[in-house]
C-alpha cells in the first residue's frame, strides 16, 4: 500500500483519507474519536469531519504543528483575516482546536469531555490499520461516555445507536464464552 504526504495532492483521494494519511505520515500520536470512530465501530450516522484527541507531548506538538502547516490549517471558529501563528507553542497554549485545512476540517482535542486527556482516551483503544498506518480508535464504551457527556441532542442520537452496537458485542462475547464452557451445546 502506498502512503505519505505526496499522495495528499491528488484530487482523486477522498478528503478523509488525506487527513488520515497526513496524521499517519507525520507520526502524530493521536486517538480517533467522534463520528469517524463511530463509523469504524459500525455506526451508520454520517459525520463530516475528523476528530482526534492528541498527545500533549512537546515532540508530538512539533510534529502536529508541522503537519498542520503543510495543509495551510486555519482556525475555523475565527474570522479568516484574524492573525494566527500556527506552531507548537500555540498548540501548547491552547487545548481544543477546530481547523480548516486543505484536506478538510479537522478537530484536535487535548481533552475529551466525559473521558479525559490523551492517555485516558488511548487506554483500551482499538488499533486499526487505516490506509497503511496504525491508528488508535477510542474504545466503544469511552466513545459512548464522550457522546453522553457532550449531551446535545445530536450526540444523544448517536448514543442510542452505539449502545445497541455495544450490547450486541457483549451478547456475542457472552455467547462465545458459553460455547467455550459447553462446546457440545
Amino acid at each position: 500500500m502506498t502512503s505519505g504526504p505526496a499522495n495528499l495532492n491528488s484530487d482523486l483521494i477522498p478528503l478523509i483519507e488525506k487527513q488520515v494519511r497526513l496524521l499517519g505520515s507525520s507520526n502524530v500520536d493521536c486517538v480517533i474519536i467522534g463520528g469517524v470512530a463511530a463509523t469504524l465501530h459500525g455506526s451508520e450516522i454520517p459525520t463530516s469531519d475528523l476528530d482526534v484527541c492528541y498527545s500533549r507531548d512537546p515532540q508530538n506538538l512539533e510534529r502536529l504543528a508541522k503537519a498542520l502547516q503543510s495543509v495551510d490549517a486555519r482556525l475555523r471558529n475565527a474570522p479568516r483575516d484574524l492573525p494566527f501563528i500556527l506552531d507548537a507553542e500555540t498548540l501548547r497554549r491552547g487545548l481544543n482546536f477546530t481547523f480548516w485545512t486543505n484536506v478538510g476540517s479537522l478537530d484536535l482535542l487535548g481533552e475529551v469531555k466525559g473521558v479525559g486527556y490523551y492517555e485516558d482516551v488511548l487506554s483500551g483503544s482499538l488499533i486499526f490499520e487505516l490506509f497503511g498506518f496504525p491508528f488508535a480508535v477510542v474504545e466503544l464504551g469511552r466513545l459512548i461516555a464522550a457522546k453522553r457527556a457532550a449531551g446535545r441532542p445530536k450526540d444523544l442520537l448517536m448514543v442510542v445507536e452505539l449502545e445497541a452496537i455495544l450490547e450486541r458485542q457483549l451478547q456475542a462475547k457472552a455467547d462465545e464464552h458459553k460455547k467455550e464452557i459447553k462446546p457440545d451445546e
Partner: protein
Amino acid sequence: MAVKDDDYFLNPPPGSAAARAVEFGIDLTLTLENLRLSPEERIRKLDDHLAGIAKLKATARIIGRHDERTSKPK
C-alpha cells in the same frame, strides 16, 4: 458571503435559530463553509465524503488493542 453572515454563524445571537442549532449539536462553522461553496461544489464535497467513508469502512482492519492500564499495545 458577507462578514455579517460570518458573524451570525460564528457568534450566533442569543435566541436565534443559529443559537438553537448550536445547542442541538450542529457545528455551524461547517455549515458556514458549505454556504461559501457553490451548489455544485457542495454536491462534489458530499460525494467526496461518501466515497471517503466507504473506502475507510472497506479497508480498515483491527490489528490490536491498547492495554487498559498501561496504554501499551498488547
